[in-house]
Each structure stands twice: as structure tokens, then as C-alpha cells.
């Protein structure tokens, strides 16, 4: 049996990234994910990897760009305001189709906000925070073990589609400690690709670019990106259902908030309310078709989030009965209590 280790979410994704073959971490201090830079500064040394503290988040995402260009497994992490600064770099990564992993340990916004947990970067992560038609694959783990599991696999998913994967967490998940099992260390020997820039001795030179000036060239490039996104949409979808078979009241929620909802479902059932939970694990691709089926016969759909109502828009778009959808949420670091969710949903 594998040993369990007690770690917080921030250390969990740091170590999971390393186990997943990441040897290039670039970061910049920001609360509530400062454990990451501290951990990576010594851990990367131990595994022969690279840790660089950048002079800003703009620099760290572009360092990721530089490493990803060579086919390396590179990542950065930050919290909401820092992720905002990275948006230009993310758009360029998307245009150049460079695989990369970005972790966002969300805190309250907008602006400097506060350093308390929030889920208010859903739109930014899912709808494209930077400019242009692009998508990120967005995982929203709800336990520290899931943080490990999805971070671990995110690098191979990113490479499969030449896409950027975002691990969307929040300050609570980042700081909270839970026992986890870390997977085996991946022996990553560099990707086999026909695009990475590795020196063209003995082969034709390659070109990676995001500037397409010729007539129609950019449109063709965008079509190619969209086809790729469609493929990812079909195959990378992940979701979880809990007691939805006979549910009359359906809760929908993601990330840490879904854990409160799971408990709320149990309490509602004790009160005789047939409640269930639908939890998208990938926020993009959004499991809309699955939700459509699960929600078809319910009387009431309650979307619970730690924001002012963001995923609820996708929930309304997905179901056949949007008039049944209501929203319960708190912002600015407020955490919806299980009892309040129960009260709202019953």
C-alpha cells in the first residue's frame, strides 16, 4: 500500500507537477499560494529541474512560453491578480499552440480584492481571459487528492492537444491539508514532436508563430485551433454525479464548493428532500449535454458558487428548463455554509 502524506493543496500541485515530469517552474510571489515558490526553490534542485523567480507574473508566463517552445514540461502558478497579468502570455501560448500548465489559486476580486478563497475567475478561465478565440482545458479539483491527480495528468493532456491546461483552485483548497497519495515519478524524456524548437541540425527548420498577416492565413489557423478544441471537447470531458438518479432538487457546483453541496445533499435527503449533485470537473469543456440529461426531470436546479453567479450562466444554457435554475453564492472570501445551502435548496 502506498504511503499517505499530509499536505496542503499548494504543495500537492507542486509535487504532483514534478511527479508528472515538470522540470521547469517559473513563479512570482502572491498570497495565498506562496508555499509553491518556496517549495519549488528547493525541490526543483533535488530533481535536477529549474526554478526561477521572475520579476513579475508577466515575466513568469513568458518564461513558460520560452521553455514550452523547446518541448519541455513547464508550468507557472499564481493567484487571481497575478493570473490577470498573465493573460497576454496565455493568449500567445494558445496562438502558438504551446503546451503549458497554469495553476490559479483563486482569491477574492475584483482588483486587489483580498486573500480569502473565492471562485470568481470562472469566466476568466473558461471564456478566454485574454484576447482572441482560444480555449483552455480547465480542471476544477475539489479535494487535495484530486489536485494531485489532475495536475499530474495535465501535462500529457496539454501535449496531446498542444493546449494550455489550467488547474483552477481557490485559497481554501490551496491552504487546506489532506492526506494524499502521490503517484510515481514520470520518466519524461522530452516530447516527440514535429513542432518543438530544438535546433535544426540534420532536419528542416521549424516555425512557431502567432502573427499571421497574409490574407486568410489567420482564419485558417483559427479554424485549425477550433477543430482541435472540438476534439478536446469530445474526449476530455469530466464530471461527477452524486445521488442524481431520483433527484428532484439538483445542486450544481464546482471545486471546493461542490464538497459543501455534497454534504448538503445528504442533509437534504435526511429531511426527505430528494436532492442530488452535478459537479463539472472540467469547466471547459463544460459537460452541458450530461447536465441536460441529469436535469431533465428535476423540479429545481440550484447552482452554488463562491462568486456572484458565473457557472450558473452555463448551467442555464445547458438545461431544457432554465426557468428552474436559481443561484446561491457568496463573494469576496465568503464561504457558503452547508446549512445555508440546505435552507436555500429545500
Amino acid at each position, binding site marked *: 500500500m502506498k504511503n499517505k502524506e499530509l499536505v496542503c493543496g499548494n504543495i500537492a500541485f507542486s509535487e504532483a507537477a514534478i511527479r508528472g515530469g515538470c522540470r521547469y517552474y517559473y513563479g*512570482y*510571489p*502572491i*498570497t495565498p499560494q*506562496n508555499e509553491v*515558490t*518556496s517549495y519549488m*526553490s*528547493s525541490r526543483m*534542485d533535488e530533481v535536477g529541474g529549474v*526554478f526561477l*523567480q521572475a*520579476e*513579475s507574473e508577466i515575466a513568469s508566463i513568458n518564461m513558460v512560453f520560452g521553455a514550452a517552445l523547446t518541448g519541455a514540461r513547464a508550468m507557472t502558478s499564481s493567484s487571481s*491578480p497575478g493570473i490577470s*497579468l498573465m493573460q497576454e502570455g496565455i493568449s500567445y501560448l494558445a496562438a502558438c499552440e504551446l503546451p503549458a500548465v497554469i495553476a490559479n489559486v483563486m482569491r477574492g476580486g475584483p*482588483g*486587489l480584492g483580498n486573500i480569502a478563497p473565492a471562485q470568481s475567475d470562472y469566466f476568466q478561465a473558461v471564456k478566454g481571459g485574454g484576447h482572441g478565440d482560444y480555449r483552455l482545458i480547465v480542471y476544477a479539483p475539489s479535494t487535495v487528492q484530486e489536485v494531485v491527480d489532475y495536475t499530474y495528468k495535465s501535462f500529457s493532456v496539454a501535449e496531446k492537444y498542444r493546449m494550455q491546461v489550467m488547474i483552477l483552485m481557490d485559497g481554501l483548497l490551496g491552504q487546506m491539508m489532506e492526506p494524499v497519495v502521490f503517484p510515481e515519478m514520470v520518466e519524461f524524456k522530452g516530447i516527440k514532436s514535429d513542432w518543438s524548437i530544438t535546433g535544426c541540425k540534420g532536419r528542416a527548420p521549424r516555425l512557431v508563430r502567432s502573427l499571421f498577416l497574409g490574407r486568410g492565413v489567420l482564419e485558417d489557423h483559427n479554424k485549425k485551433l477550433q477543430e482541435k478544441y472540438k476534439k478536446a471537447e469530445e474526449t476530455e470531458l469530466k464530471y461527477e454525479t452524486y445521488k442524481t438518479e431520483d433527484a428532484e432538487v439538483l445542486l450544481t457546483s464546482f471545486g471546493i464548493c461542490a464538497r459543501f453541496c455534497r454534504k448538503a445533499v445528504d442533509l437534504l435527503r435526511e429531511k426527505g428532500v430528494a436532492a442530488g449533485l452535478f459537479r463539472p470537473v472540467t469547466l471547459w469543456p463544460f459537460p452541458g449535454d450530461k447536465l441536460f440529461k441529469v436535469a431533465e426531470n428535476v423540479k429545481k436546479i440550484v447552482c452554488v458558487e463562491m462568486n456572484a453567479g458565473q457557472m450558473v450562466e452555463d448551467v442555464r444554457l445547458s438545461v431544457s428548463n432554465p426557468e428552474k435554475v436559481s443561484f446561491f453564492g457568496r463573494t469576496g472570501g465568503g464561504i457558503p455554509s452547508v446549512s445555508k445551502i440546505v435552507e436555500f435548496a429545500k
Partner: protein
Amino acid sequence: MATLKELAKKPEYFTNGHRGCAGCGAAIVARHVLMATDGNVVVANATGCLEVFSTIFPFTAWNVPFIHNAFENAAATISGVEACYQSLKAQKRYDKEVKFIAFGGDGGTYDIGLQALSGAMERGHDMLYVCYDNGAYMNTGIQRSSATPKGANTTTAPAGKVEQGKTQKRKDFTAILVAHHIPYVAQAVVGDWADLTRKVEKALSIKGPTFINVFQPCRLGWGYEPSRTIEMGRLAKETCFWPVFEVENGVYKLNYNPKDRKKPITEFLKPQSRFKHLFKEENKPLLEEIQKDVDQEWQRMLKICEAT
């Protein structure tokens, strides 16, 4: 220049009741800089310790108009305010004399804020930028910055078996500002109030962009007794680790020269736990190297002062 007696009678523009650590040097910088003004100032503050501990809404330690925007843009934010003020004055819609001061730590100044500061200085806004340089990202948990001295232990450049803290030299940031050809640039230190007061008064009397880099001991990040903040600042000066000088229209002037009473760098390093590992027997060469670097820089400073 105001005497200490006169200063003591002035109203406090940066007041007590904030949440700075015991022995916080950043609070001393803010208080002394504002004490040297007549209170008709607008302050901009980059994200950092000073901003966080002094402005926890609904409380504020600032008895002057205060604006905070983000981490990287205090100089840009105050540029906007100052440009608006100049326009209102030109239109004769406002006639009060107002000074503009921006505060940023070394993270918000040396690193992420460099671009905004450089832009503001080059455009020539009538403003004073004060950097409170404590040599690391103290607000987020003591990560290295480009102002962190070589050999210092931080959470992202830790001292251990392989490396002995930060391996790079600190950036000579004040020189970058001198290279902007602005009318006044100075280095000061917490622990010499008279020098700092005079420099702020002088900077504010000059029209155009001015910059003062104030070396600021941080008991948390440096790891010394909270009661020794002033002493630590003075030791930085007396060991010539932090030369105290000013550059007016390109002409350097040394404001403190210990001559043959220059103290060894170990006197500055020893009380700080971030340098503890340097005093191991095997790190003696590193310590000697640091002393050599300080001596070299000091000689260079003396030569520059002589030449200009």
C-alpha cells in the same frame, strides 16, 4: 531644514494604530517622509507591506489623500493624478500647491514596478518617488528580490547544503534612476532622520521628478531584535554597505563618509539571522568576498563623487 523640536510639534501625517510589526522600518520611512512635508501631498502606494498594514479599511494611518492601485503601477497611478492636477491648474480651476509622493517597496520598485517608474521619471512628472528598500518580498513571506543582498537567506533562495542564500549581487537601482537624468536622486537610510528630512524637503522643492531610495531594516525578514531597527540602519551606513549620498543634476555628493572609522561588514551582517550561515567556518571566503564587494563599491562611489 526643520529641527527635531519643530518636527515634533508638527501634526502627524502618518499616524500610529497601523498594523506594522514591532520595530517596522517601513512605517518609520512613511512617517519621516511625510513629516518633512507641509501635509499638502497626495500619496500613492504600491501593493506591499506598507499598503497592507496601513490601510485596512475602514482604518487608515494616512492623514493625507491616499491612492493605492496595484503592485506594479504606483508611479503610473501618481502620474495620472499629477497630470490631472497640472491640467486643472493650467485651466485655473484649481490653485492650491500640492506635492505628489509615491511609495513602493523594493519588489514594487526594483522588480515589477520598474517599467512604470522609468516611464514616469522620463516623462518628467512633478513628483517624488520613495522606495523603501528592505531587500526582499516581506509581505508575501520573505522571497528574494533583485534588491536582496548576496548571501542572504530567503524562502526562494534558501541557504542549505548546496547554496548559501542568494547567489547574485543586488541591483544598483539608484544608478538606474541617475541614468534617467532627473534633477534629484538620493540614497538615505532609516536611522538618520536629519538626512532623510533634508532630502525630502530638497526633493519637494525641486520641480520635476525626484527619487529617494531609503534603506529600511525589516526585523521580520532580516531576523534581528525589534528594538534594533535604527541601529541596523545606521550599521548599513557605517559599514558603507549602503552609501548615503545625493545626486543633484548629475553631480554626486557624499553625505556620510566614515573615512578611517569605516566598520567591517560583519557588524552589519552578524545581528541578522538571514546571514547566520555566512558565519560558519566553511563560509569564511564568502564573507571575505562580501567585504571585498562592499570595499570596491565604496571606492567606486568615492571616485564618482570626486569626478562629478
